[in-house]
């Protein structure tokens, strides 16, 4: 079948997808099927945490696609993640209806608070789920397309490109911090009630979101793997290794970069859209440059240019972060920095490189 064909030569991917399948069967069963006091019961907190990690993993996969296989070090992928998140957040805000603090049926709370009289034009349509789904894909996609078109056409590469992606996410953060932008300013969007009519606080909805995240991760992984297996994927690696050469063979390097970058941004947007209902808030902090850098660290730790390494890195580093911020709140950033340096110096191929040790195709 199609999936079997995509995974034919991808040992790590087979293992990863099998584990993901196991996780998405076992965790909901242990959460819904067992009583609260049972030793094997998985709490809803843990379930939601895992669901959040899965969306991070999808984000990491999208970064690995452009960084590991195309050689574009994007330090602004958090921006696409946050934009997808905001699109979903806007839908969830509209779902609150008149159950907000001010009880206004037409306006979200923060707009009532700012004394706005009517809904800004760009909020229209977000009361419909299908429209939101389109926007989740379209907004990050169009931004990446326009940005990529300008950047790749002028042949901005390497560290310069990294810096302007960083500037992109920083500029968006500043813009979203402003109340006049109409996205809730520094408080962002929160206090969500339900999604598609299902209560966001209920265990069943949480399980549904968890499963949706797992499904999105699996589909995103397979799509990326299919691209890499195609001749286009080989062209991408060729661009990473010798851009000029690829151009002289006759490939339109800018176009290849543009489409893969856009695709990757869309994946990041989808990850963000699944992240928001699970954590219950989206604010401009998600645009912060630090987030985008951190997610590059996940990929580096896991092992770039493997895809499943990105998943491993995202899960591992975030698990460590959850543990650290509870046990040693001040130590986390130091630990992250140390981790990055250690991985760069000792494990240039990340944990996956350590596991395989075969000098697999980097």
């Amino acid at each position: 079948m199609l999936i079997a064909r995509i995974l034919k030569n991808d040992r790590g991917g087979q293992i990863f997808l099998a584990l993901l399948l196991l996780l998405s069967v076992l965790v909901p069963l242990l959460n819904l099927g067992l009583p609260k006091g049972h030793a094997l019961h998985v709490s809803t907190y843990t379930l939601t945490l895992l669901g959040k990690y899965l969306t991070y993993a999808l984000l990491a996969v999208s970064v690995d696609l452009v960084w590991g296989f195309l050689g574009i070090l994007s330090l602004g992928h958090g921006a696409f993640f946050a934009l997808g998140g905001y699109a979903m957040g806007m839908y969830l805000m509209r779902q609150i209806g008149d159950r907000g603090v001010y009880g206004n049926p037409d306006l979200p709370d923060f707009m009532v608070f700012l004394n706005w009289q009517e809904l800004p034009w760009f909020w229209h349509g977000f009361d419909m789920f299908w429209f939101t789904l389109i926007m989740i894909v379209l907004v990050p996609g169009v931004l990446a397309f326009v940005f990529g078109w300008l950047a790749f056409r002028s042949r901005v590469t390497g560290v310069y490109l990294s810096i302007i992606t960083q500037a992109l996410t920083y500029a968006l953060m500043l813009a979203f911090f402003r109340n006049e932008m109409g996205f809730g300013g520094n408080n962002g969007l929160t206090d969500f009630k339900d999604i598609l009519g299902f209560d966001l606080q209920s265990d069943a909805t949480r399980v549904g979101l968890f499963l949706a995240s797992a499904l999105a991760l699996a589909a995103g992984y397979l799509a990326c793997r299919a691209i890499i297996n195609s001749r286009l994927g080989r062209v991408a690696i060729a661009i990473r290794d010798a851009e000029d050469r690829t151009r002289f063979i006759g490939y339109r390097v800018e176009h290849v970069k543009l489409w893969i970058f856009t695709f990757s941004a869309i994946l990041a947007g989808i990850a963000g859209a699944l992240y928001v209902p699970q954590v219950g808030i989206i604010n401009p902090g998600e645009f912060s440059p630090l987030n985008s850098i951190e997610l590059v660290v996940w990929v580096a730790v896991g092992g770039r240019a493997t895809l499943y390494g990105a998943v491993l890195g995202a899960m591992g580093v975030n698990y460590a972060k959850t543990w650290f911020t509870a046990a040693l709140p001040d130590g986390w950033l130091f630990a992250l920095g140390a981790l990055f340096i250690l991985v760069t110096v000792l494990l240039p191929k990340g944990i996956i490189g350590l596991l395989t040790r075969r000098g697999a195709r980097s």
Partner: protein
Amino acid sequence: MNALEQLRRSVDRDEVFEFLRPKINVRDLDLTHGTILYLEDVSVSFDGFKAINDLNLYIDAGELRCIIGPNGAGKTTMMDIITGKTRPDTGSVFFGQRIDLLKLSEPEIASNGIGRKFQKPTVFEYHTVFENLELAMEGDKRVWPTLRATLSGEDKDHIDETLTTIGLQEHAQAYAGALSHGQKQWLEIGMLLMQNPLLLLVDEPVAGMTHQEMDRTAELLTSLAGKRSVVVVEHDMDFVRSIARKVTVLHQGSVLAEGSMDDVQNDPKVVEVYLGE
């Protein structure tokens, strides 16, 4: 200046509008005068330094031409201009009678049939030899067709054939990064062949090769001429003598002498430039 020029042209009714002219088909080369490449009055300067100075060069169809010259003579810059990497300040560059290379981008020039081998061998190190050739293969290289591309039996035969020509059939599944220097040079020539170009530009093909490897390369290049035109830039005089029929000497960005190897070597101007060569 460009916008003004455009405006002036659109008012000027003596000639057919640019957009009304039929598009020239890829590979529709007009070789009626037997010349495949024209460089006329080409000049380019970098920060005031004239790398190419009023260069006039004509390459005949099917010819094997060697270009020599001391360091800084503008050999590599000339190749950059032909392949679209550098744009000249003045002059014109035509491929056949009709294709104006100055109007095309690098990939367009490549798909029109000009292939280039770089001075430093650049192959895709993390691809196998086979994959390197597959990527170079002539075909539709836009994004979507590339995503959907599959290898037909014919393609495989074509690649195998090239593997035999460059003598790397035993290394087909080896990573290109693991090849020796000479093998990389051959692989790169093989990639050029897969592109099926009408004009090959070969920059220093034997740098760092042993004598044996050099002989094989000479054989390979001579066998290519005839069907295709080959321009070789090379420092190694023995190698040039072994393959060249016609040699062009570049000096300070323009042609100093042109003719057979013997003529050129006895030219007092050339002797002066090379000082004792």
